[in-house]
């Protein structure tokens, strides 16, 4: 198993840092999947996560000037590593004024992802910062749980409002209730609702627009006013929204009534999918 990659472009480095910061906010521990063309940050749905799952994908050639990998075997040319997300974002934080950044898989007393940063400095002297991020190699037999989730046909697909606005609303709602109902229809309306014994609060978003639906029949059959709703844990939604520091290029919300809500975002060229199951 081998992995070496290098970033020399400042814009790519900053973008990669932003992605890493986002992952650190979304998942404490996650899986990094390395394949010849892509890097994925994966969180698989487990009870420990509250059933939340995440799939983040980026094309390696959009970031790395050099990229070499050798997977577990020729037939399985992939590497799955488990790491603490915050370590990666902390390591990248020191790369703000970097001339070059190298990442490689090493084994220094324990398996690590070594991030090596050559800093620009005022004087001609060179400064090098090295971070050894401890990782756990995930054995092949567990790979099946870490595959790209299949997205079932949504009852409603809708474009999301500005995420920052959503976040500040959900933050206030969190003080009142633990659960939130997210509902939307094919008329571009989305509501965030909380209900308690004493009070109900609903925030209405209108004219959001709906993406063209995949299957013609389903969308035509459905009454555009009819809401599809899911009741979810409010903290999971807040965690997801808090991870989005920048408003994405594209943000779609897919609701499977009473089952799951699926957020499909695109941050420039990095795609993020986040699933929050219905609260049972």
């Amino acid at each position, binding site marked *: 198993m081998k992995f070496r990659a290098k970033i020399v472009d400042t814009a790519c480095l900053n973008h990669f840092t932003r992605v890493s910061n986002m992952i650190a906010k979304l998942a404490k521990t996650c899986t990094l999947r390395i394949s010849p063309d892509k890097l994925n940050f994966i969180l698989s749905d487990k009870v420990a996560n509250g059933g939340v799952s995440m799939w983040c994908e980026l094309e390696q050639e959009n970031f790395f000037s050099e990229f070499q990998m050798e997977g577990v075997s020729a037939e399985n040319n992939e590497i799955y590593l488990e790491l603490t997300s915050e*370590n990666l974002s902390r390591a990248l934080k020191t790369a703000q004024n970097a001339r070059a950044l190298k990442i490689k898989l090493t084994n220094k007393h324990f398996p*690590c992802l070594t991030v090596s940063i050559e800093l620009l400095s005022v004087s001609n002297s*060179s400064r*090098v*910062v*090295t*971070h050894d991020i*401890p990782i756990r190699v995930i054995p092949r037999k567990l790979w099946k749980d870490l595959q790209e989730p299949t997205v079932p046909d949504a009852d409603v697909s809708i474009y999301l409002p500005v995420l920052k606005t959503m976040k500040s609303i959900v933050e206030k709602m969190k003080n009142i209730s633990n659960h939130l109902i997210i509902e939307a229809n094919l008329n571009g309306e989305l509501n965030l609702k909380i209900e308690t014994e004493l009070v109900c609060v609903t925030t209405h978003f209108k004219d959001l627009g709906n993406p063209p639906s995949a299957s013609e029949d389903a969308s035509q059959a459905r009454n555009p006013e009819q809401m599809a709703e899911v009741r979810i844990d409010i903290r999971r939604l807040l965690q997801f929204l808090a991870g989005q520091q920048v408003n994405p290029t594209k943000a779609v919300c897919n609701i499977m009534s009473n089952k799951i809500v699926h957020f499909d975002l695109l941050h420039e060229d990095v795609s993020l999918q986040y699933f929050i199951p219905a609260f049972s």
Partner: protein
Amino acid sequence: MKCLVTGGNVKVLGKAVHSLSRIGDELYLEPLEDGLSLRTVNSSRSAYACFLFAPLFFQQYQAATPGQEALRCKILMKSFLAVFRSLAMVEKTVERCCISLNGRNSRLVVQLHCRYGVRKTHNLSFQECESLQAVFDPALCSHVLRAPARVLGEAVQPFPPTLAEVTLGIGSGRRVILRSYQEEEADRTVKAMVTEMSIGEEDFQQLQAQEGVAITFCLKEFRGLLTFAESANLSLSIHFDVPGRPAIFAIKDSLLDGHFVLATMSESDLRSPELHRLAPPLQAHSTPHLDDFANDDIDSYMIAMETTADIEGSRAVPSVSFSPGHQPPASPGPYSEDNDTEPSIEPGTPPPKKFRSLFFGSILAPAHSPPGPSPVLAEDSEGEG
């Protein structure tokens, strides 16, 4: 004692107090002929810090009322720090600061003369005490490196603020290496990230050390001095010796000097696969003292008291040349509190201050290491019960 600080020096004084507050909970104030000395030591006696402000730092400086002996006192760090709590405010509003110590009042009076005629008076209670004195001499350390504080500030920047200990050493190519130190714990399932910063020799004003030497010390305590040095734009020297011997961090300018003396881990090898932990076996001795010196066993006092007759004329923190025969144990193992090796006395020299193992005991986070035996640096006054 009466002294008056004006203008920008008030903030400098405040910053020094902030710096000292990173180390200990009690501030020892001692007006000397050389200037006002502010000292502190941490509860496990593994760190000592001292600032000496020369008389020229003050607009007025009077060490003692003529005819009377200078008063030495210790006050709660928290109380003194409260006077300078907000440095921004100090800078904006305080014009003069007057510190006076009057034995009759048994109060240390700190008066801030602020803008618009506002006067803030703090009456701090103090305890008379003997001098807090650590015995050390930078000149006796084999290795020294010196760099502008800014360089060292940049060097520690990649390390998380919560990191307790760091290893400093010279790597191949005469590069100065700083590496995060992690305690080894068998039951630790999730390993911590290891960060290493490497700086070229050319960034240092002085580098007198061979490749391979290394010491491990408490980063949090070092940051106390570093922050001060950075704000004052001074160079910082690090004098060190073999692992286990304390490292001396020093700054100096025409008006003040500062010394932080920190214990280093006794068994530390930058090149070895595993950094061994220090922890000398526990000795059933007194628990680390916080504020109460009264329970100390007299035998455990490691530092001879300084009497006024022994003060040498130099401005530097009084140091002693200890005779070569005496070597504190540098190898791993329990630091002995036995004062079994006495330095030989050379005729004509002032009575040697005994430099016993000044620092030892684990400087690891208290949660992990049991309290070690502590050589107390300062003797409490006789009357304390």
